[in-house]
């Protein structure tokens, strides 16, 4: 029983890495296009995270079910099924987005549905086929949290700099850089966000090794 619990804790720990150490957007760099272009206001950021969540989690769950299909079914049929599910999930995502902010779809344009085809589930779906459905659900949730953290961070920074507003409400920022909303600044902000994340992860890594070395010393 204890050994089985350890594996569960280890798996949980491995999935949690997906959020910070292996962040899908900033570290492995998947699904970059919407994160770079789409996220210039917080509303857009929320919209992107919503669609990403609505698409990736069901697809990964479906992938784990597809794993049970007989071996004869070729792999490309499974990816086609996942893609169709992703397309169908767009419709409820669109309705939900209309509730949050009326003109969300127009401001995002084609990037709203481009998120449906992101490379995260394309890469993760074959891996999830061997997993049990609960684990792939958990992985989907971790991926979505990782993606949304990054996109929300980038979009808040860009909105603050570009329009000086937070979720549409003006803030007391004296300086406005209208160009931060453009595409080139999106690249640079995401690049610096990736660098800052790596810097923080390195520093936490150093601190953790220090603590572990301290503990070893106390125990010895």
């Amino acid at each position, binding site marked *: 029983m204890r050994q089985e619990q350890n594996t569960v804790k280890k798996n949980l720990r491995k999935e949690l890495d997906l959020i910070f150490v292996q962040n899908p957007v900033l570290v492995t760099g998947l*699904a970059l296009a919407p994160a770079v272009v789409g996220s210039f206001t917080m509303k857009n950021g929320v919209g992107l995270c919503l669609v990403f969540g609505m698409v990736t989690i069901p697809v990964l769950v479906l992938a784990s079910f597809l794993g049970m299909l007989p071996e004869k079914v070729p792999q490309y049929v499974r990816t*086609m099924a996942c893609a169709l599910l992703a397309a169908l999930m767009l419709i409820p995502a669109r309705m939900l987005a209309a509730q949050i902010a009326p003109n969300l779809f127009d401001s995002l344009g084609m990037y709203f549905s481009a998120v449906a085809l992101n490379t995260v589930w394309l890469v993760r779906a074959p891996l999830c086929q061997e997993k049990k459905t609960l684990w792939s659900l958990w992985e989907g949730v971790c991926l979505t949290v990782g993606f949304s953290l990054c996109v929300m961070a980038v979009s808040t920074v860009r909105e603050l700099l570009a329009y000086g507003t937070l979720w549409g409400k003006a803030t007391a920022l004296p300086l406005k850089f209208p160009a931060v909303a453009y595409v080139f600044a999106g690249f640079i902000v995401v690049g610096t966000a990736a660098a800052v994340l790596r810097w923080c992860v390195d520093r936490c890594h150093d601190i953790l090794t220090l603590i572990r070395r301290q503990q070893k010393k106390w125990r010895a």
Partner: protein
Amino acid sequence: MGTLVNIFTLLLTALVLENAVFSRALDITSLLVLPFGKRGLRLFGMILTGTTTIASLIAGLLNPLLGRWENVQYLRPVVYIVILTLLYGCVCFLLNWRKRDWFSGHHSMITMAFFNCAAYGAMALTVYSGFSWLESAVSGLGIGLSFLLALFVLEQGRRCMSICNIPKAFRGLPSELVYVGLISLSLYGLVGHQLAA
């Protein structure tokens, strides 16, 4: 003669003015991250050009049909993805039937090429700007070729950055992102405004 000039300007705008990668950041993931290696990426570029041209050709053909469905806004993205999956299905079926070994080797490359923001963007662009079927094919070709152009530019960038001692936090992906960002800043001088997404 008129259409020829029109096509040439269209191709030029798709290549330089509204470069799919630098002005619309359509296909950054496969450009920066996917582990296809140098020659693999060029092959991937070819496949991507094929998919974008065919996809936008079909979108151009369906254009009058899709245009009329104005009231059903939600269905349009679904239709695009369905078209893409069908294309993917028949291409995979053909390859599986004909060249099995080559297909098994390059399976992930083909899936990436089909389910790709660039392909989706090409279709959305053709319907958004209401091109005829010929113009949409040319704009799809333009988007694919702009991916190859971006690939060439980024190769030079990577080699140039290999000799700069970039601070540790910026090594790898972040510096390439900033590099592509500065190139899109330079192309901003041509575009001059935020592209209609």
